[in-house]
Structure formats: structure tokens, C-alpha cells
């Protein structure tokens, strides 16, 4: 066991982890931030995407200790300061960009990273960017629409 310290959603946190503890497990189990989801064990689904140092990362692909000292944002950190849904989140609700909601945190985190890089993506660019996020419910149609709406907002 070793102690890891990082900033998560603007707050400094630390916890005891094993060398093999994944960042996704640390966030879910140590911090009880269960918005980050685990949909696979081969780094394929993207349900676990968070931002580390401003970049979208599948949190199941890095160990918690690798995030030592970094600034991490999870879905719980995406709301406006007053607690209302942030622009991307609101666009997902407005455009029915989610059904069961399981892929949704990862989708929102990926969408945020995309719009950071490319504030006006085309439909093709959005679809290609989401290659690493699987949604079984929506057929992606309304996810794409949501991201377009967030870009326009």
C-alpha cells in the first residue's frame, strides 16, 4: 500500500492504494465518485473516461499512483458552480443524448475534451472522436446531436 495524492474536481484528496489499483477503482472506491463507470476490462468502452491534466483518459488504463500530483476531473466536476448542469450536460438532456445513462459520463467527458480541442467539429469529426466510447442504447444519433448543440451553445 502506498499513499497517493491528487486534485479531484478541484479538491485535494489522498488515499491508500495498492500498486495495481487503477485510477477508475480509486475514484469509485476510495473517493466514492461512482459517476465514473466500468464497462469493460480491455480499455475499449470509454465508460470510465475522466480528464487528467485536462486530457481525456480512460481511467481504467492508468494506475492511481500514475496520477500522483495531477489534476483530475470526473463527471461529478462538470456541473456549473451553482450545481446546475453544465453546457454539455444540458445539451445531452435537451437532445435526448442518453437512455440508460451508463455510457453517459464517459461520453460527456470525451465530448468536453473534443470541444476543447475543436470547438466546431463536423458530424464526421464527432463520430471519429467518439470511436473509443461505446453506447449500446442511443445508436449515437442523439449523442452526435447533443455535441453539435453544445458546440453551438
Amino acid at each position, binding site marked *: 500500500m502506498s499513499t497517493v495524492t491528487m486534485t479531484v474536481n478541484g479538491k485535494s484528496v489522498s488515499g491508500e492504494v495498492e500498486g495495481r489499483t487503477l485510477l477508475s477503482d480509486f475514484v469509485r472506491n476510495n473517493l466514492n465518485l461512482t459517476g465514473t463507470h466500468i464497462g*469493460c476490462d480491455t480499455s475499449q468502452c470509454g465508460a470510465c473516461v475522466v480528464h487528467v491534466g485536462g486530457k481525456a483518459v480512460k481511467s481504467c488504463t492508468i494506475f492511481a499512483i500514475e496520477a500522483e500530483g495531477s489534476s483530475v476531473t470526473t463527471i461529478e466536476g462538470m456541473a456549473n458552480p451553482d450545481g446546475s448542469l453544465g453546457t454539455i450536460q444540458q445539451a445531452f*438532456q435537451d437532445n435526448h443524448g442518453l437512455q440508460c445513462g451508463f455510457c453517459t459520463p464517459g461520453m460527456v467527458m470525451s465530448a468536453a475534451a473534443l470541444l476543447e480541442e475543436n470547438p466546431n467539429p463536423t458530424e464526421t469529426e464527432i463520430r471519429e472522436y467518439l470511436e473509443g466510447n461505446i453506447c449500446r442504447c442511443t*445508436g449515437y444519433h442523439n449523442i452526435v446531436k447533443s455535441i453539435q448543440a453544445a458546440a453551438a451553445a
Partner: protein
Amino acid sequence: MSDKGIGASSKRREDVRFLSGNGKYTDDINVRGQKYVHFLRSDVAHGKINGIDTGEAASMPGVAGIFTGADFAEVGGLPCGWQVTDRFGEAMKEPAHPVLAQGKVRHVGDPIAAVVADSLEQARDAAEAIDVDMEELPAVMDMKSAVAGGTLVHDELETNLCYDWGFVEENKDAVDEAIKNAHHVTTLELVNNRLVPNAMEPRVAIGDYDASNDESTLYTTSQNPHVIRLLMGAFVLQIPEHKLRVVAPDVGGGFGSKIFHYAEEAFCTLAARKLKVPVKWTASRSEAFISDAHGRDHVTKIELALDEKGMFQAVRTDTYANMGAYLSTFSTSVPTWLHGTLMAGNYKTPLIYVNVKAVFTNTVPVDAYRGAGRPEATFQLERVIDKAARELGMDPIEIRRKNFIQKEEFPYATPVALEYDTGDYVATMDKLQEIADLDGFEARASESRQKGLLRGLGINCYIEACGIAPSNLVGMLGARAGLYESATVRVNATGSITVMTGCHSHGQSHETTFPQVIADMIGISEDQVHIQHGDTSNTPMGMGTYGSRSIAVGGAAMVRATEKIIAKAKKIAAHLMEASAEDIELKDGSFSVVGTDKSVGWGDVCLTAYVPHNYPLDQLEPGLEETAFYDPANFTYPAGAYACEVEVDPETGKVDICSFAATDDFGNVINPMVVDGQVHGGIAQGVGQALREHAVYNEDGQLVSGTFMDYSMPRADDLPSFVVDHSCQTPCTHNPLGVKGCGEAGAIGSPPAVVNAVLDALNKGGYNVSHIDMPLSPSRVWSAING
């Protein structure tokens, strides 16, 4: 389009918690003191267990208990919920389905032992130290040879044939005769590929036991907690309902795979009772691939007889349906009653005979997956019609139109036992031709040609039987459960409403759409209504959500309960206004006496019911709460027409979906935005089946495509945006909302459209290819092109 109530695209209230990371899925629940389960699963498809040595594992750190089949010898096996009677009047073969393997393993993934430990890592480490003396047996994989004889999956059954079902048996000779004498017979042999449902949330089960009250709680990823309570409590563990609570909180998609009662649920419930600690199991995705029930997996030969004008004379189909190693909860009903009964499709074929042989193999059990039987029926029918059109030189749309059941012919009794209540197949086809811009196809095809690509157009229709369904009918057909739905409408003292439903929402949006109905009926705002579901301790016994039944059956129950509420509220209002209840009208949340200006508000009536100072206590009970159980009179019959355009690269065999259009008649629609979303998702799954997805087993019974690296899930860049329309509405005549259900249509209607489109592209491009089996991977398409 209305902006509130029925017909409004109300935004989903559940989204707020899902979007902010506050959803409460089963894996988000941790019970104080819980221990973790790891299942040791078979890595061979078929084997005899000569011994299990748990000695070393039991002494490893953190281990609280190790269980094997012997510990479950006393409890029942997992039951099958539907008994099928074969062509000869015999009951199907029904093997035992133990919670943990007893003596033999029968598929890769079959659980042999389970370790409960303080941490998941400790449970895993200990499971590795369990020594299983396994004698590997030959794997039974190919259905036709399995039926012919040889190795048995279940020795005691003396056959691998579960049943040989004929439908309608009395029609068999007439069908044979019609096919023998037909002007033209089109024959098609095809495989409906095995799929893995892959809801994004893997299954989870947490067992908890309160010894002081002798009460068990199971938290589980289920589409139907009451069904799990009934099956597990009564058949497996013998726990009476009042001592067993099943909770299915937020569930991350189901698509059928979370209907069934699984071994892990029974295990966690029992282990918690034995160890007197909470016990949690979370499936990894790899584990899900080899323990969730799979879907489809039919091998079929279909023959369509036509006269010289292209009118359908008869249909005969022969199907081998894979059951896998055990009978999962509703497995036996899928290739029979959910498949054979749909073989009339949207057409007036007078004679139909369906034969289905259900076969045991050393593979994961196969059960309902989105559409369940109806996609298999639709695929073969719509493919053989396309093939017939090509053989006869007819237009694929014209041949369908000619054979449609006409609007004025409803209600229409098919030769396969269903009575379609309403429909207008001409209207959905007309609409499809418009929204898919079929007139512009030639221009688009010539653009594709300039890029060296072959463009094809695939058309098909579908019908499904949803809202499953009348209990007396399904009981006659072998269902071991009723299929009603329930709702309790509780009006609170100040007028807000809590509805407790037996349905379960795992993406379907009930929390938003059900209030739209009640708000409309009473004339209050939607946010005054709250939907409670998913917990057997606070919802009435209901059968859950599958088969596109929630609004058609559960919604109807809610309407019935609300009607009772309104009737009673009118009596209270009548008392308050000193009028007769017959003269009271409810409109926009206000009760008035017809022909007067007297009125009293909804809130005042509700308060009076709970503070009955001025109240007809001699005639009416106080309070305002009603329950209704609704058992439908028939299935509902959504139907539609779909069109897909593809480009095929003849150099590589790669298929691109250029466009996909769907017209669906769902009857009345409560929330168009939600309905669009359901269709989008269904289409994506159907396109996935047609082009990418395949659960591939090798001859040793190893699942070759057992992770998302090998099992190709459709991703955002594999799909176009869809054009969907549900403006053609012929309301259902036998439920109070006139709704038909929309959850499965997309997955049922889309695979034949895609395959028809690829074959159209190839044939128009000069390649004479009559069929390619799904998934139409580049290598399969390339091989077909290159002979």
C-alpha cells in the same frame, strides 16, 4: 404536437442524475461489511468433474468461504419459465440447471466454484488455488450433428434435442402440397448469427441477510425484480416472498439479457444467508461474454411459394435453434411462440408451416435479445421475399405491396394464430418512399459509381407482436407466469402523485413518460407525478419490462388505476359541491358541476380525502390510493417499413451505411423524442448484427470473440444519422392508450434492410450473389464477390 402531456417531447427528468454522475447503479451500492465473490468458471466447453480440491484456497488470506456444487445440492436449479409441447404432444426436454456445476461443466463460463473473500483480489487469488480434476469431453457444437447423435450435453436426457415443434401442425400437409404445386418456389438457407447483448453495464448481484428478521435482500441488475423474486424465492431457494426483497436500482441497459434469473443472483443471496455477511459480485466484461445469455443463433431453411403474379401462396420454414447448454428463463419461447407466430409478416400468405428443432450444445445459454424471435422471423421472411423478387424480375417494393394485408381487412386473422388488430402497411411504405427519397436513388448510385463504389438499396417491412400479453393465452401456450402489469397510484394529501409500477426502466424513460399520461388525465403538471419502480418492497407485483410492453401493459394498468382515482375524487368533489357525482366534470385539474360555475380544485379534493372533516364517511373511505392490474386482451402489432442505402467497395468488400430510414406505426405516441431514441438504438443494434457482431465459437467450444477487441460493437463512426418517422398511426384498439410499444422495432426491422441493400449493390454491380450470411464483414462480402 402538444407541448405537455401525451404527445409532448418532455425532457427526461432522470437525465439530471445520470448526467451529473449521481445515478445509482447496482455496482454503486456497497453494503457495510460486504465481502466479494469471484466465480471459478470452466475454461473447457464440456467436461466431467472428478474432484475439486479447495483445501489450499480455503486457507488463503481473507477467504470467508468457498462453495461448490455440493453446497447447492439441496437447493433447486434455475427454472425455465416456458414449457413448449412438441409436434407429437410431448413436453420439451428440461434438464437440471444447477447454480454451481454438479458433476459436469457444459460451457466455457459454467461456474464450478465460488470464493467469498474480504477483497476481490483475495477472492481471485484463492480461486486460482482451487484444484479441479477435470476430464475433458468432446464439445457438442454443431446443431445438426448434435441432433443426429453422438456426445450428449445432458446424459440423462438421452438426446440433444430439446423439442421438435410444428406450427400449425394441422396445416403441414396443405403447405407441403401448395409448395409442391406452386408456380415458383424460392428457397433460402441462412444463419441468424449468434449475438451477445452487451448492455454497457455488466451484471452485478449483492446478497444481504438480516438474521434477526430472517430477511434476505438481493440488489441486482434486473429488468424485472418481481420475476426474480418469484423464480428465485419459490423455485431455487425456497424463501417466501415476505422474507425476500429484490431491488433493481438504476440499470444500465438490458435488451433482454437482464430478464432472466441467473445463477449469480441465487448464489449471492444464499451465500449471504450462509455466511451472514453481505456478498457482492460484479461481472467483468469478459465474464459477461461467457455468462450473460446470448441471442439469436438460428440455422434456417425457408421456402416461399408464389403464383405467376407474385402472390404468396405458402411459406414453409425449418429452423434449428440453439438453446446452449441449459434452458435460460424464457429461452424456449423465443424460437416458438415469439417466432413462428410472426411468419405471416405484413402479408396475406394463406398457408404457413413452421418447424423448429431446439438443440442443446456446449455453449452459453441462448435467450431473448431485443426483438427475441421476431427479428429471426422478419429476417428470413424479408430476405426470401427479396430473393423471390429478384428471381421473378419483380420490384421488391411492388411484390410487397401486392401481398400486403389491406387497411380495411383488419382485424386480420393470420394462419399462424395471431389476430392483428390494426395497421396500414401501404401508408408506412408510402411514407418510407418519401422520407428515404427513393426517387433520388439513381442519381446517388451514379455518384457512387464515379467513386468506384457499388450503391444498393434495401427495403423491407416488419411486424411484431408486442406488449406481451394475455395471461390466459400465454398460459395455454406454456408460459409458467402471468403477463399482466400493475400500478398503484398514490395521491398525496396535497395533490402530488406517486405511481408505483411493476415495470422497470433501464433506458426506456418511464420516469418521464408515465407522468405525461397521468398529468393529461387529471390536468396537473407532469412534475407533480413521481414514478417509483425497481423495488419489490414498495411496488405491486408486476412482470417487468421487456417485449415492448411497458406502456402498452404497464401504462394501461396506470390508466386503469388513475380512472379509479378520478371516479372517487369526483364523488368527493360532488360531496363538497353538494351535487351528484354524475354531474362532475374534471378538466385542467379542476372539478366542476356541469352547467354551473361551481368548481373545486384538484388539491382541495385530495386534501379533503386525507383530512376528512367534511366528508361522506358513511359512503366513502378516506384516502386516495388505487391499484390496478391490467391483463391485455391481445398482443399489440407495431409494424413498419425500413430502407437502407449502402456503398460497397468491390475491391475490399467493405460496406458503408450511407443512410437509413425507418417508418414505424406505433399507434399513439406518448413522447416522440423518446420514441425516436428507441428506434435509433434498435437500428444501431440491427446494423451491428447485419455487419459486425458475431459470437464465434471454435469447434472446441471456446468463445473466440469474447471481448470488445474481437466482438465488434457498432461505434459512432460506423453509423450514419437516421431518418425516422412515426406519423402513420393506427391506434391499438384494445388498450386504453391506443399504444403499441416501440422498444424492439428498430432491431427487428433493420437487419434485412442492410443485407438486402448489400445484395442489391452487388447484383446491380453485375455480381450474381443470392445471399451472404450475417455479419456481412468485408471478408465475407469480398469472398462473395470473388466467387
